[in-house]
């Protein structure tokens, strides 16, 4: 650990002379970890406080400024056996935290109010059929009003705000009829209280608020949990760069600290961390994460390189340019804008229902009032009955129907290793009939692996793998990953651009290019079986072997695609890679409809063509070049290894090396969508029974309370079925994929 990481941009200096650093910690799995980490850090000189949050695996460390370098904290944690990554709370997440707390406060107020008002209301109901005096009843009604009015004013805010927003934009949503119902019920109850009437509806109003807030809070809590895990994963991925200072000194800094104009050194085998222009050096870069192209591109001075590319042979010096200046990125940005604008036109299921529901209910109430007046009732009675219709139809069950299913289903997805970015993705996922895959990094694994390991002599392979441990070359690291014995050989010499060699048991051992190992002959024969794979040769004494290295298919890709096809999905491939590289993969997976060499605009065009045929397309992709296509598709998924911009535009992100989550996601979404429709059906049946009763004037506050809590309970219980059989946890949040997570400060 010769270089120390400069973490100063993550450190928050506080007024009392202490410095504060937030870290996301990997590898916390038991209660003992808390004590180990906290007391371990307390032993460091200068540390004032270290507190681990076991729920979201984040550690807050405070120390007296100047007594400790932030990198020491990370090193100490590493020594204790935990990898820690500096963490910057994102604005979105803080905003969500605040909103969750606010909803919880509203929920507490509504809960308090509904319990106490129910106490008073039950006394009145039982008193009304026995011997309550009108004075006691009035007293109870006044008390209920005293509790309900401030409680609704406070706890109703989430609904008031959302309804106001919708109305201001000329739309309606479910909150509009809710707010109208609440306000009318409150007004009529106050008037009835003043008139010493028998019935008030304070209890119904507050109970309604309480149920609805439960749904909202659960929805928020689920989303917050998902976001916390996702942003931990993002900080695990955070990479480091070697920055060249003006005096020529090289410092290791987190990527977040890089500014436009900085000079950065990229060694062979390192990933390029920011867009830039090459100042000096020659090399080849693998841009598969950017364009999907697996063939390497030669770069020299003045070449433009993109973040996410892997540097292969030579050391490069880059000047960082402002993001979005490359031709490719400009293209991507422009396409993204158009695609995102098109997508926002989707109207959610709940809002579509609300659009029909609100006018129907309000017309029903008006008809009730008019009919009662026409049949000779007093205006007071007619109004009370009409308002009873509004209260009983106040869409409690309807407003819970969709969010509760979403909460339960995103819980199932979470366990299957899929994080949702958007709540309405379920509705869109359920309608999917065509699935378009990107090839590189989506159908194949984002990392390289040896594909002909089975054909080689085991001893020879093991020796090659062990020798590969000493090389920094990216292809060698694919070989090195298979080494069972993790101890590198002694005295290994690296010949730049050729390979590594050493002497074992008196015999020379070489790993590298076929020429370097004198294995040109075997290499030529072996490459014929797979022309797109990269070749690594190995020789030991007289024995030679040739290893083929390539991005292998995800282990279950063939099975998952077969299942998907059996379920009637039309699977296709749109890849940015050369057609020669796509063809064998498509053949293996049995996909007939594939295209290679697609630019981002070509992908969008292909998606538009599918859309024009009336298909609903699920796009699965990971490269930067896929981002516009993900935004343009009906719904989209991306693996956690995808480029940041791409992940931001996907509706959901999945973890792990397997493709199974794609299938799970569709299954869970279909079940969830079915349950949403069922729930809306239940709410409809409830209204069909309740509205005629209310129309006839049979709805007393007792009936209203029973009907509302009954329908809400049924809808919620039905939503719980979305849990169903949880698919086998292929990669739960606890088992994070290792290769993706770049070690920090190592």
């Amino acid at each position, binding site marked *: 650990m010769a270089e120390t990481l400069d973490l100063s941009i993550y450190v928050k200096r506080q007024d009392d002379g202490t410095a504060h650093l937030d870290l996301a910690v990997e590898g916390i799995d038991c*209660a003992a970890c*808390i*004590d180990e980490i906290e*007391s371990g850090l*307390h032993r460091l000189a200068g540390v004032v406080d270290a507190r*681990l*949050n*076991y*729920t*979201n695996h984040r550690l807050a460390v405070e120390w007296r400024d100047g007594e400790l370098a932030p990198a020491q904290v990370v090193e100490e944690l590493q020594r204790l056996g935990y990898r820690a990554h500096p963490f910057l709370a994102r604005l979105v997440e803080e905003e969500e935290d605040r909103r969750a*707390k606010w909803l*919880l*406060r509203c929920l*507490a*107020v509504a809960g*308090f109010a509904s*319990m*106490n008002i129910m*106490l*008073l209301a039950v006394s009145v109901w039982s008193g009304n059929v026995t011997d309550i*005096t009108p004075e*006691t009843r009035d*007293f*109870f009604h006044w*008390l209920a009003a005293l*509790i309900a009015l401030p409680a609704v004013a406070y706890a109703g805010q989430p609904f008031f705000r959302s309804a106001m927003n919708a109305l201001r934009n000329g739309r309606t949503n479910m909150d509009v009829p809710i707010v109208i119902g609440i306000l009318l019920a409150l007004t009529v109850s106050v008037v009835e209280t003043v008139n010493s009437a028998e019935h008030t509806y304070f209890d119904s109003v507050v109970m309604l608020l309480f149920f609805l807030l439960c749904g909202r809070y659960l929805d928020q809590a689920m989303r917050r949990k998902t976001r916390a895990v996702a942003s931990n994963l993002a900080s695990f991925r955070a990479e480091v760069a070697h920055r060249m200072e003006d005096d020529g000194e090289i410092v290791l800094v987190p990527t977040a600290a890089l500014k436009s104009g900085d000079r950065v050194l990229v060694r062979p085998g390192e990933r390029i961390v920011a867009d830039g222009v090459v100042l000096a050096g020659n090399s080849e870069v693998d841009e598969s994460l950017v364009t999907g192209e697996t063939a390497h591109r030669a770069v020299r001075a003045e070449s433009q390189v993109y973040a996410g590319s892997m540097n292969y042979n030579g050391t490069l010096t880059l000047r960082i340019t402002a993001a979005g200046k490359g031709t490719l990125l400009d293209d991507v940005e422009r396409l993204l804008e158009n695609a995102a604008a098109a997508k926002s036109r989707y109207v959610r299921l709940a809002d579509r229902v609300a659009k029909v529901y609100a006018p129907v209910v309000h017309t029903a109430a008006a008809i009730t009032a008019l009919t009662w007046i026409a049949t000779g009732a007093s205006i007071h009675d007619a109004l009370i009955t009409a308002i009873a219709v509004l209260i009983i139809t106040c869409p409690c069950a309807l407003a819970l129907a969709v969010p509760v299913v979403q909460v339960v289903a995103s819980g199932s997805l979470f366990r299957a290793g899929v994080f949702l970015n958007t709540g309405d993705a379920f509705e869109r996922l359920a309608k999917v009939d065509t699935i378009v895959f990107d090839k590189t990094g989506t159908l194949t694994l984002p990392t390289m692996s040896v594909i002909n390991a089975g054909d080689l002599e085991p001893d020879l392979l093991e020796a090659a793998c062990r020798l590969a441990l000493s090389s920094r070359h990216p292809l060698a690291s694919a070989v090195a990953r298979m080494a069972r014995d993790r101890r590198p050989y002694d005295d290994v010499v690296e010949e730049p651009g050729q390979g590594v060699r050493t002497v074992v048991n008196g015999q020379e051992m070489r790993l590298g290019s076929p020429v370097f190992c004198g294995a040109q002959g075997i290499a030529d024969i072996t490459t014929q079986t797979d022309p797109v794979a990269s070749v690594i040769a190995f020789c030991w004494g007289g024995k030679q072997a040739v290893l083929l290295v390539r991005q292998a298919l995800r282990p279950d890709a063939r099975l998952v695609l077969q299942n998907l096809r059996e379920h009637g999905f039309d699977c296709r491939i749109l890849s940015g890679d050369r057609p020669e590289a796509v063809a064998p993969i498509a053949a293996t997976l049995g996909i007939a409809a594939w295209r290679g060499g697609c630019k981002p605009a070509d992908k969008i065009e292909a998606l538009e063509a599918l859309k024009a045929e009336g298909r609903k397309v699920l796009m699965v992709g990971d490269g930067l070049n896929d981002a516009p296509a993900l935004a343009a598709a009906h719904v989209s998924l991306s693996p956690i290894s995808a480029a940041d911009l791409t992940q931001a535009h996907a509706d959901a992100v999945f973890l792990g090396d397997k493709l199974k989550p794609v299938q799970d996601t569709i299954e869970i979404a279909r079940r969830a969508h079915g349950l949403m429709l069922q729930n809306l059906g239940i709410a409809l049946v409830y209204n069909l029974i309740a509205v005629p009763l209310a129309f006839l004037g049979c709805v007393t506050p007792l009936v209203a309370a029973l009907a509302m809590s009954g329908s809400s309970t049924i809808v919620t219980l039905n939503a719980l079925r979305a849990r169903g059989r949880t698919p086998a946890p292929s990669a739960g949040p606890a088992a994070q994929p290792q290769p993706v997570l770049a070690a920090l400060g190592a």
Partner: protein
Amino acid sequence: MEVLIYLVPMALLLGLSGLAAFMWSLKNGQYDDVQGAAVRVLSDDDVRT
């Protein structure tokens, strides 16, 4: 039944103090790490000198 005039408001006050206690605990960060609180209770050397 005159007793209700002060009994019911007293019951309400008790409920209100419960609500106030909840609000305080929420503001105080008692719910920030619920899983941690569940396991920390088992460690007996959590008081540092």
